C-alpha cells in the first residue's frame, strides 16, 4: 500500500514523539549532570545548561567508591554474560540437536525458574550460599545472574538453531569434522546474532540486578553499581548532582557494549520474526 504525504507526516510525527520520549530523559540526565546544584533543582528545568561544572563527577570519582562499584559491575556482568552464552550454547545444542528421553519436558521445565518471584527465593538462596561460603563474593552474583538469564537464553537459542539447516552439520560430518569441530567452526559463526542477543540480554540483566546484589554482598568493596549508587544517594537527602553524574556514567558500558555487538543483537531479535 502506498503511503500518501499525510501518512508520511503522521509516521514522522510518531517517530519524533517516540524519539523524544526515549531521548529527552537521557538528555536531561546527561546535561543536568554538568549543571550547578542550584540549576539542577530549579523550579523550571533548563533544557540547555546555563551553568557548567564538573564538581559532581569530581565528587563521584574522588570521594565515593563509585570506581570500585563500576569495576565490580563490569566484572560481574561480563562474567555472567560469558557463562550464560557458553551454557546457553551447550544447552541449546543439546535441546535442539540431540535426541534424548524427556527432552521436551526438560525444555519446558527450565522456564519454571521464572515462576517464582525473586524475593521469594532470596532468603533460601542466602542460606544456601552462606553454607558454602559464597556470601559476599562476586561468584555468588554470577551464579544468581546466570540462573535467571539462562532459561530465557536457551529459549531464545531455539529460534537460532531452527534457522540452521541440519544439512550443514551433515556436510561437515562428511568432510570429517567431529561434533565439537562442527559446533566451533560451523555452528558458532552462524549463530553470532543469537550469541550477541544472549550476551546483551545477560549483560544488561546482570548490570541492572539489584535485589540479590543488595543482600548477598555485604562489604562495600564488593558492591555493584545499582546497590552502590543507591547508597551514595542516601535516605533523608538526595545529592542530585551526584545521582545524575552516577547515572550518566552507569549507562556508558551498556552503550559501548551495544555499539560493538548491537547490530548482531538487532539481527538476532528479528531472526525469529521471519521464520
Amino acid at each position, binding site marked *: 500500500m502506498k503511503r500518501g504525504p499525510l501518512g508520511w507526516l503522521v509516521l514522522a510525527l510518531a517517530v519524533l514523539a517516540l524519539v523524544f520520549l526515549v531521548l529527552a530523559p537521557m538528555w536531561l540526565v546527561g546535561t543536568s549532570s554538568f549543571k550547578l546544584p542550584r540549576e539542577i533543582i530549579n523550579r523550571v528545568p533548563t533544557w540547555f545548561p546555563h551553568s557548567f561544572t564538573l564538581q559532581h563527577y569530581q565528587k563521584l570519582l574522588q570521594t565515593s567508591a563509585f570506581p570500585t562499584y563500576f569495576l565490580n559491575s563490569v566484572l560481574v556482568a561480563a562474567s555472567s554474560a560469558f557463562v550464560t552464552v557458553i551454557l546457553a550454547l551447550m544447552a541449546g545444542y543439546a535441546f535442539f540437536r540431540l535426541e534424548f528421553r524427556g527432552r521436551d519436558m526438560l525444555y519446558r521445565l527450565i522456564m519454571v525458574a521464572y515462576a517464582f518471584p525473586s524475593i521469594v527465593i532470596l532468603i533460601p538462596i542466602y542460606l544456601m550460599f*552462606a553454607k558454602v561460603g559464597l556470601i559476599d563474593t562476586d561468584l555468588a552474583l554470577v551464579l544468581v545472574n546466570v540462573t535467571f538469564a539462562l532459561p530465557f537464553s536457551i529459549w531464545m537459542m531455539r529460534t537460532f538453531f531452527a534457522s540452521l539447516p541440519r544439512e550443514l552439520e551433515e556436510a561437515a560430518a562428511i568432510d570429517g569434522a567431529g561434533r565439537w569441530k562442527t559446533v566451533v567452526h560451523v555452528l558458532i559463526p552462524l549463530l553470532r546474532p543469537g550469541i550477541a542477543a544472549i550476551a546483551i540480554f545477560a549483560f544488561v540483566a546482570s548490570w541492572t540486578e539489584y535485589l540479590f546484589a543488595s543482600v548477598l554482598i555485604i562489604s562495600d568493596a564488593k558492591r555493584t553499581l545499582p546497590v552502590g549508587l543507591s*547508597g551514595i544517594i542516601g535516605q533523608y*537527602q538526595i545529592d542530585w548532582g551526584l545521582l545524575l553524574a552516577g547515572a550518566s556514567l552507569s549507562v556508558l558500558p551498556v552503550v559501548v557494549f551495544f555499539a560493538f555487538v548491537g547490530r548482531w543483537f538487532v539481527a538476532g531479535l528479528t531472526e525469529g520474526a521471519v521464520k
Partner: protein
Amino acid sequence: MRFKGQALAGAFALTVFGALPALAVTDVKIWHMEQPPHRVQRVQELIDAFNAANPDIKVSQEPQSWGEVYAKVPAAMAAGNAPDILFAIPDFTTVIRKAGQLDSVADFVKELDGQHHFIPATVEPYSYDGGVWAVPLYNMSLNFWYHKKMFADAGIAVPTTWSEWKAAAEKLSKDGVVGVGLPANKQLYTDQTTYAVMVNNGASELFNADGTLRFDNPKTVESYAFYKDLYKFSSPDAANWTWGEAEACFASETCASILQFSVISTYDQQGGGDAADLGVAAVPHADGEKSSSTIAYSNAAIILAKDAAKRDAAKKFIAFLLEPENYGKFLNMEPGLFLPVTTDGAKSATFWSDPLVVKYKPQVEQMIANSHAGMLFGFTGGHVFPAIGPISAQNILAETLQKVVINGEDPAAAVKAGQAQMIEATK
C-alpha cells in the same frame, strides 16, 4: 649443626611470639545505614582513631541500606555471619529481637548514663520486657522548615497552630510557589509527616495501655482531615515525594515550607547557603493543644556479638563514640540531622565547632529543642508495643492518608479501615 639448632629455635620463637599479638586482636564488625560517602568517611576516621588507640581491637564498618537491612540482618543471623554491632531504630529493634536472642545492655546503658546522662526519651523506646536492647547513639526529629524571607515579605508570623499554618500556606501559594510541601502516598516519609500532624492533635497513642489498638478515634480523624485540607496548598506532584524531593522543592524556593529531617549540608549546597533565610520551628499544633511535638527517631547500637571478648570490644567502641570529643565529630557526619542523645554530648566542643553548625547555630539549637519533644508511634506513653513492627513495615499510617488525600475517602471511614488493617497486620 649448632647454628642450625639456633636458627630453628629462633624461628620457633619468632613464630610463637610474632603470632601472639595477632591472636590477641578482637575483630568487631559494624553494620550501619549511613551510606553517603561523607558519613562513611567520618565513621572511618573515628574507627581509625579507635583502632590506633586500641591495638588489641580491630573495628571495621560495612555500610548497609535501609531498603534491604530488614531482610538482610535476620538472614545473616540465621547464617551465622551477622555483624557484632548493628545500628538500628526502635521498630527495627523489635524485628531483630524477634529474629534472635538479644542480650540486654541495661547495665552498660546505666554505666554510660552515669558518665554522659542520656535524654530519657531516647532510651525509652529500647527499654521493655525487663531489659534495654540497644544503646542510644543519635536522635533525629522532623521539623518545620520555612523561608524566613517569604514569610516576612507576606507579613506572616511563623505559624504555631493549625489554623495559622493553613492560613499561611494559603496566603503563600501564589506565583508558582506552594505554601507547603507534603507527601501523600504509601511510604515512610508520609508515615512520618502524618504522625507529626497526629502528635500535635493529641493522637500520638496508637495503642491503649493493654496493647489494644486505639488508632480509630476522633483525634486521629481530625488529624487526617486537617492534613487533607493542608494538602490543597502543596505541590501538585507532591504525592510521591520522598525527603529528597521535598528538600529540593524547598531549596529551589518553590515550597515556602516543608516538614523535614534537617539535613543542613544539602540545603547549604543546593539552596545557595543563605543561613539567614532558613527558618526552623516546631511543627504547628492543633488549636486546642498547648504545645508542639514531633516525630523523632532515637537511633541506637544493638550489640549482636555473643562472644564475650567481642561484646567487651563492642562496648569499648560504643563508649569511645559517646566520649564528648569523639561524639561531636560522630554527630557531625551529617550536621543538623544527627542530634545528641546525651547531656554532655549536647555541650561537646567538637559538635558546636563544625563550620556548618557554626553557620546554622540557631537552627541547630531549635532542632535540638524540638527533638526533646519527639515521639515515635508504638513507643509512647512509657509503653513499647512490639506489634508496631508490622504496622510500621506496611506503612499503614501513610496508606490511610493516601486513601483520604488521593482517593478522596471520608477520613472517618479511612481511619476505621486503617485500624482494621492494623489488627490484621498484627495477628
